[in-house]
């Protein structure tokens, strides 16, 4: 893998820092007039999502990380791993562990296309589509006549996710959800 010097650090560059794949968020050149030049760098640890701040002497190098974000179709969960397949026509399949799937698991529906980040050919994170359509598995009975405003109630979706929905929503209905906020958007009609 290539190495990169501090002057090549750009937002989005994927590098290996303390054994973890990271994406560079920000690189600030810091130099006292009569002193040593430094790079103050913010990284996102792609394993944990945490932001790390580190300072390097100008000219230091770090190793690049073989990180690739790619679209994959979610296939199924075998109880331990979540299985995905590339959408580029190769039908190549990958299995992702719970740590990589993280909170995305509650939005995963078979055949939906997710963005999967691969590090050394293994999935390390999964981002679901911004919007998913999921069926209501359980909720209190709907209250007719109150369709426009006022109040909400919890509903459990087919994937196990629990979200707030308007009072008129019934079991069996399909809802459109924004996965970035976990919020109900609308009912989906056939």
């Amino acid at each position, binding site marked *: 893998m290539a190495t990169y010097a501090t002057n090549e650090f750009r937002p989005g560059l994927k590098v290996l820092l303390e054994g973890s794949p990271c994406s560079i968020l920000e690189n600030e050149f810091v130099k006292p007039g009569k002193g*040593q030049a430094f790079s103050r760098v913010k990284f996102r640890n792609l394993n944990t999502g945490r932001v790390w701040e580190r300072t390097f002497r100008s000219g*230091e190098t770090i190793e690049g990380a073989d990180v690739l974000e790619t679209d994959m179709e979610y296939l199924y969960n075998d109880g331990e791993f979540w299985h995905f397949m590339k959408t580029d026509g190769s039908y190549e399949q990958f299995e992702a562990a719970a740590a990589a799937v993280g909170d995305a698991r509650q939005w995963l529906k078979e055949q939906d296309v997710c963005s999967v980040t691969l590090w050394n050919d293994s999935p390390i994170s999964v981002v679901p589509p911004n919007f998913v359509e999921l069926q209501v598995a359980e909720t209190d009975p709907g209250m007719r006549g109150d369709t426009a405003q006022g109040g909400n109630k919890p509903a459990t979706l087919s994937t196990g996710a629990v979200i707030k929905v308007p009072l008129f929503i019934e079991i069996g209905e399909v809802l459109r959800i924004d996965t970035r906020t976990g919020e109900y958007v609308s009912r989906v009609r056939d």
Partner: protein
Amino acid sequence: MSEAHDWPPSCAIETLHARAAALAATRAFFAERGVLEVNTPVLASHTVLDPAIESIAVGGRYLQTSPEYHMKRLLAAGAPSIYQLGPVFRQGEQGRWHNPEFLMLEWYRLDFDANRLMLEVEELVDCLLSPAPYLCIPYRQLLADRFDIDIDTASVDDLADICAQLGYKASSTSRTEEALDLMLAAALADRGEGRVFVTEYPPDQAALARVNASKRRPHAERFELVINGVEIANGYHELADPDELAQRMAADTEKRRASGLCVPKPDERLLAAQRHGLPNCAGVALGFDRLLALKLGTDGISPVLAFDWNRA
């Protein structure tokens, strides 16, 4: 990025007016005090030996990183107090608060010491920005307050521990001066808003300031003005002793050689001028673009440059 796409200036047209007004105010400030404006060469046969400053070489000469050497030669030849506004160049210094070419205001005051010059810096900054209080904090105290450490007695390991806590990653053992640079930058950044003079630098960071050996703790008569965490000016009660100047040049040359940097020849003309006699004076260099950026409240200096490095 395509060059056809980024032809417009880095700054707004109104900013050109603000810059011109600040330049006019600066010239009026010095005219009122009887300080003479001078112009010295930008491209010259010698340059600084400071190991932390890289010059840009052009056609066997060097773009000047500061007008210091030429201005001191003028003073040695009998010039009165002088100032200069002009472009200076530093290889590889590019970032939010850096541009490899920038506008420097540098001035020298006969018979001033560092304290008296700091007062004048305050007056100029108050005139260009707006009046505000200034703190004076000795270098050692700044680090002691922030890191609870006495840099004169601290071991290299103590300093390395602090740097590690600051998130410092170095592949090779870091040097003491490097650790101190990093700690100072962090201490200043953490202070946030406000105007601070850092004074009484350790003698090994004297650059071309004279060293005061008379007090219990020797220190360089050097100061830096930092505003809202941004270094604005660096000043000295100027070293006059030609033998000490020759020693410091030799030491810098040795450091450059040891670090594998290019080693320009020492400027014999500066040495000769100081042998002839540099009058008692204090001098300061101020980053004009940075001051303008603080005045206009921009996040960095690009928005106050007509064309920044990427568009030049």
